[in-house]
């Protein structure tokens, strides 16, 4: 076999055709060339002048906020349990392609690289061991007959994850909840809002689609009211106004700000998710309902087994998109004087005069953390879509 010779004439022709074909072409080529040079040079100059000390001495603050130093240990078991459940789930359900694996790896390596610290080398090592061990073992179990049990166990673990995290944070006289902060706070708020808001959203969507006028009106009023005001307004309402109107029953007025933020976010999420799911409900052909009626299925079974699974499947991309939006909305809790990740990133350059002008470094790290979670979520959504693809029309 002869090696093909590079034909310089062809390359020249191709270049002329594609870049300098016409007067407009020449103009566009020059213009975009200048733009590219400009961007690259500004990125290079940023990288060469960037100083990451503002980030490196504030790692703990970024991740955990004002959580007292003696309580830092509580974050690790939470990470380990999450890591165990997450990696086992990939092993049990996922069949990741190389490209997806690479993305996931990148998504996890980046924060690890940023927040790597010699003093926690053992902890990080344990995390990696747990992650890979649970992935490999669930891959092995997958080939056996126990896959069903594994999947059921994992689903219940996912549900138990939030109460577990709360327990770990509170056990043995943990810090006050308004000291929770940093990235941990964003994740906790978002998970609670998703886990509480999703079922509530389903109920509201179904309620709004019924023919019973009282329930329909109540759900419509709820959805439109919650969607009618900005999230910030609801958060402020929960902080200032609620205590004045609510009777001081059940210690409602003493609820910590974090709990109030969780409640508001859950309600807020549920209203949006309800509308998304209602869209899915409308996409179900009437024949499905007629078949269920003809089989004498009750209303609850009809909705639970026939309608909702099909409706939710249709709107998974929209739901995950809501979740991603919600996750980033959690940074609005700074107006309740909570120090979430973004707030930490905003404050830390003000600690010391030498950090003056280092906002970009801090905010870049903040942004990359939000990005990692969003990418993992959207990857998850396409994975779920593919898995549910079996048996669709």
């Amino acid at each position, binding site marked *: 076999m002869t090696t093909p010779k590079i034909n310089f004439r062809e390359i020249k022709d191709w270049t002329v055709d594609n870049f300098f074909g016409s007067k407009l072409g020449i103009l566009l080529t020059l213009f975009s060339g200048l733009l590219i040079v400009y961007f690259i040079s500004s990125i290079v100059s940023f990288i060469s002048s960037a100083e990451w000390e503002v980030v490196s001495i504030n790692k703990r603050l970024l991740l955990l906020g004002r959580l007292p130093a003696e309580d830092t240990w509580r974050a690790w078991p939470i990470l380990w349990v999450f890591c165990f459940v997450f990696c086992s789930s990939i092993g049990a359900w996922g069949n990741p392609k190389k490209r997806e694996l690479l993305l996931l790896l990148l998504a996890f390596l980046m924060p690890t690289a940023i927040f790597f610290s010699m003093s926690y080398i053992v902890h990080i090592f344990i995390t990696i061991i747990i992650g890979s061990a649970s992935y490999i073992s669930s891959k092995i179990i997958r080939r056996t007959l126990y896959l069903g049990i594994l999947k059921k166990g994992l689903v219940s673990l996912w549900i138990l994850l939030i109460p577990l995290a709360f327990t770990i944070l509170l056990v043995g006289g943990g810090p006050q909840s308004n000291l929770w902060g940093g990235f941990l706070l964003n994740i906790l708020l978002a998970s609670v809002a998703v886990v509480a808001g999703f079922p509530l959203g389903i109920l509201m969507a179904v309620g709004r689609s019924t023919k019973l006028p009282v329930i329909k009106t109540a759900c419509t009023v709820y959805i439109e009211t919650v969607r009618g005001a900005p999230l910030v307004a609801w958060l402020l309402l929960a902080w200032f106004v609620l205590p004045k109107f609510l009777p001081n029953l059940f210690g409602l007025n003493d609820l910590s700000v974090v709990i109030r933020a969780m409640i508001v976010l859950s309600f807020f999420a549920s209203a949006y998710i309800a509308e998304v799911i209602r869209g899915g409900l409308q996409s179900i*052909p009437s*024949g*499905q309902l*007629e*078949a269920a*009626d*003809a*089989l*004498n*299925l*009750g209303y609850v*079974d009809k909705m639970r*087994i*026939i309608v909702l*699974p*099909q409706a939710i*499947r249709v709107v998974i991309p929209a739901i995950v998109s809501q979740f991603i939006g919600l996750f980033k909305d959690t940074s609005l809790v700074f107006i309740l004087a909570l120090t979430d990740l973004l707030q930490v990133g905003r404050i830390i350059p003000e600690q010391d005069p030498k950090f003056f002008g280092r906002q970009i470094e801090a905010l870049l790290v903040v942004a990359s953390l939000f990005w990692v979670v969003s990418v993992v979520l959207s990857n998850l959504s396409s994975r779920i879509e593919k898995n*549910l693809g*079996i*048996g*669709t*029309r």
Partner: protein
Amino acid sequence: MKKKIGKEIISAENVVKKFGEFEALRGITAKIFEKEVVVVLGPSGSGKSTFIRTINRLEPHNSGKIVVDGVEINDDVKNLQKVRSNVGMVFQQFNLFPHLSVLRNITLAPQKVKGLSRTEANDVAMSLLERVGIPEQAEKFPSQLSGGQQQRVAIARALAMQPKIMLFDEPTSALDPEMIKEVLEVMTELAESGMTMICVTHEMGFARSVADRFLFFDEGLIVEEGTPEHFFKNPKEERTKLFLSQIL
């Protein structure tokens, strides 16, 4: 061999159904007897589908009286449940549940409505799949089946509730010609086993060989009724003659 026709099981008296201003049924009076196979004929828009859909209240009628196996169909939910548990239905578009396996499509209602255990329901489903000739498809999803197979699953699904009456709403109209036969064979077998059946269909060969009685609908009324021989040899009404000349 002539089957023994039993006692009256459905009686409709002066049934009227309106869609807004439009009267789809303008006073239908008919009686159906046990073990009888009745074929409902008529041009499109004549109200034949609407009529069989009033029998299990997929379309609530506006006035008149429908009694199924001694239970009147009205707003009473308990009555409706009694009627629906006695009446199975097969649709033109199959209406299988696409996200459930074939087996689950069939076992769902027996488990949830009749309270059968999973193994009992599976046994029922498998024997019915044998009966409609596709036991090997049990674990597949509806979209993986041909139209004819899907409709046979739909028949098995309706039969799993052990109905006394089966309603067929143009069961072969959405099928390719080569698949019509396999569905009609199942329906013929069902008719011979003594099931009470009301079929809206344009399959005249099937109707002629299986039906005990024809009902001819036009513009929301029963224009003519009688045995297949009567219809094919000497129909009385002009509209019946016109319709039959077009369809045969």
